[in-house]
């Protein structure tokens, strides 16, 4: 495996995370560079994700690199039954770096073992999406000025939402206090609570979205209808976990609201004008973080 790969957020140490966030800040100050001149990056999207692909390809283009690849596996040899192994071997002949998204869990880890090139995971099924986590971290870092000792409130689908699990793991380096707010059907899985307990991280669990006065970050997630067996229950929960502007009265001035987007109904439109709403800027931060991750994978960041 190439040591420069980024498959899971746990591949990065605390120091590495901080180095990437500092680099992201430099790319934000000056996004257009020639650092990737002469480099070819393959973006292999075995499942379509326009949002993520455009962010990666913009990052590569702004660094002066060239892009090859595909945006949907439907017209490639994969659809003719070629194994992932063989596709990765073939592409490894042409590119300097592979960015891949795949519908199956664990596909990126396997690709990183097959290829001698660094692999950046742009999402493998419902498993990992580490650049999403890094852009969340960068958004927190930028708005709070630090990652240390923050009160992080996670709201909504904490059971299936991979973004909150990865964020929890990544934040564990920085002495956070977590508040998990979710309906009983969607509460934080036991393994993550055990992880907190083992690492001396304080957390509490709540059912209701209220008493937000202590929060530094309010991390909202999508509550999806298909997660519920009982549709009546979904209708009830959907309204309980919807953030409205009036609920932000009495919260800290420095509170910021994050959401991985796209939102469905978890954040009322009347929140958008509040300066505490940060979800649109958050998405833009993905570009700088991906510039930093790509540069690092190609050995272009000074250690």
């Amino acid at each position, binding site marked *: 495996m190439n040591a420069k790969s980024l498959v*899971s957020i746990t591949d990065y140490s605390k120091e590495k995370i901080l180095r990437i966030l500092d680099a992201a800040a430099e790319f934000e100050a000056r996004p257009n560079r020639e650092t990737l001149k002469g480099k070819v990056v393959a973006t292999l999207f075995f499942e379509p994700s326009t949002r993520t692909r455009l962010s990666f390809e913009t990052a590569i283009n702004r660094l002066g690199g060239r892009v090859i690849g595909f945006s949907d596996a439907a017209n490639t040899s994969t659809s003719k039954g070629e*194994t*992932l*192994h063989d596709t990765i071997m073939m592409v490894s002949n042409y590119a300097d770096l592979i960015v891949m998204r*795949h*519908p*199956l*869990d*664990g*596909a990126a*880890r*396997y690709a990183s073992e097959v290829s001698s090139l660094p692999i950046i995971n742009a999402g*493998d*099924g*419902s*498993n*990992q999406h580490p650049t999403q986590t890094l852009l969340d971290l960068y958004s927190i870092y930028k708005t709070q000025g630090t990652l240390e000792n923050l009160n992080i409130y996670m709201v909504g689908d904490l059971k299936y939402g991979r973004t909150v699990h990865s964020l929890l793991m990544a934040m564990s380096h920085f002495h956070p206090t977590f508040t998990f707010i979710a309906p009983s059907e969607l509460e934080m899985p036991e*393994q993550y609570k055990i992880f907190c307990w083992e690492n001396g991280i304080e957390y509490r669990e709540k059912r209701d979205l209220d008493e937000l006065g202590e929060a530094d970050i309010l991390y909202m997630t999508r509550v999806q209808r298909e997660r519920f067996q009982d549709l009546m229950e979904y209708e009830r929960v959907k309204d309980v976990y919807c953030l409205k502007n009036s609920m932000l009265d009495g919260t800290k001035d420095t509170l910021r609201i994050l959401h991985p987007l796209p939102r469905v109904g978890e954040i009322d439109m009347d929140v958008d004008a509040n300066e505490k709403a940060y979800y649109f800027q958050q998405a833009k931060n993905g570009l700088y973080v991906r510039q930093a991750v790509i540069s690092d994978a190609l050995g272009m960041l000074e250690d």
Partner: protein
Amino acid sequence: MEDSKKEMLVAAIENGTVIDHIASEKLFEVVSILNLAHSSSEITIGNNLKSEKQGAKGIIKIADTYFAPDEINRIALVAPNAVLNIIKDYKVVEKRKIEIPDHVIDIIRCFNPKCITNHEPMQTRFDVIDKQKMIVKCHYCESVMEQNQIKIK
């Protein structure tokens, strides 16, 4: 019944290995993991034998065969309580507990239907995260499986 009489239930061997204290329902999985179907050694299998410790147990006697630790520890996932008796000249010269390995390579199948290992011709790999409760984590999809969810590949 005393141990010595119980042993009589299955023929004694002169030299070889006796694997004892296998849970009855896992006996044939042990047979499969050790690939005994393709062994030419003399093999005696007893199952549903009464055991005070575990209700019903299975036992396997393999003549003239000794296993390397790596080889035998593969059965840890299905038979963590198994005891290995090394027999020389009709006597037990060594009793060994199965050691639970840190990693399990290509023995069990991932229970996540969307795991890459269930779609590619490749080896499976699990990290044993709790040796007491026998909880494993897929190296690829990162799913966590408990002992009752473990299935042999």
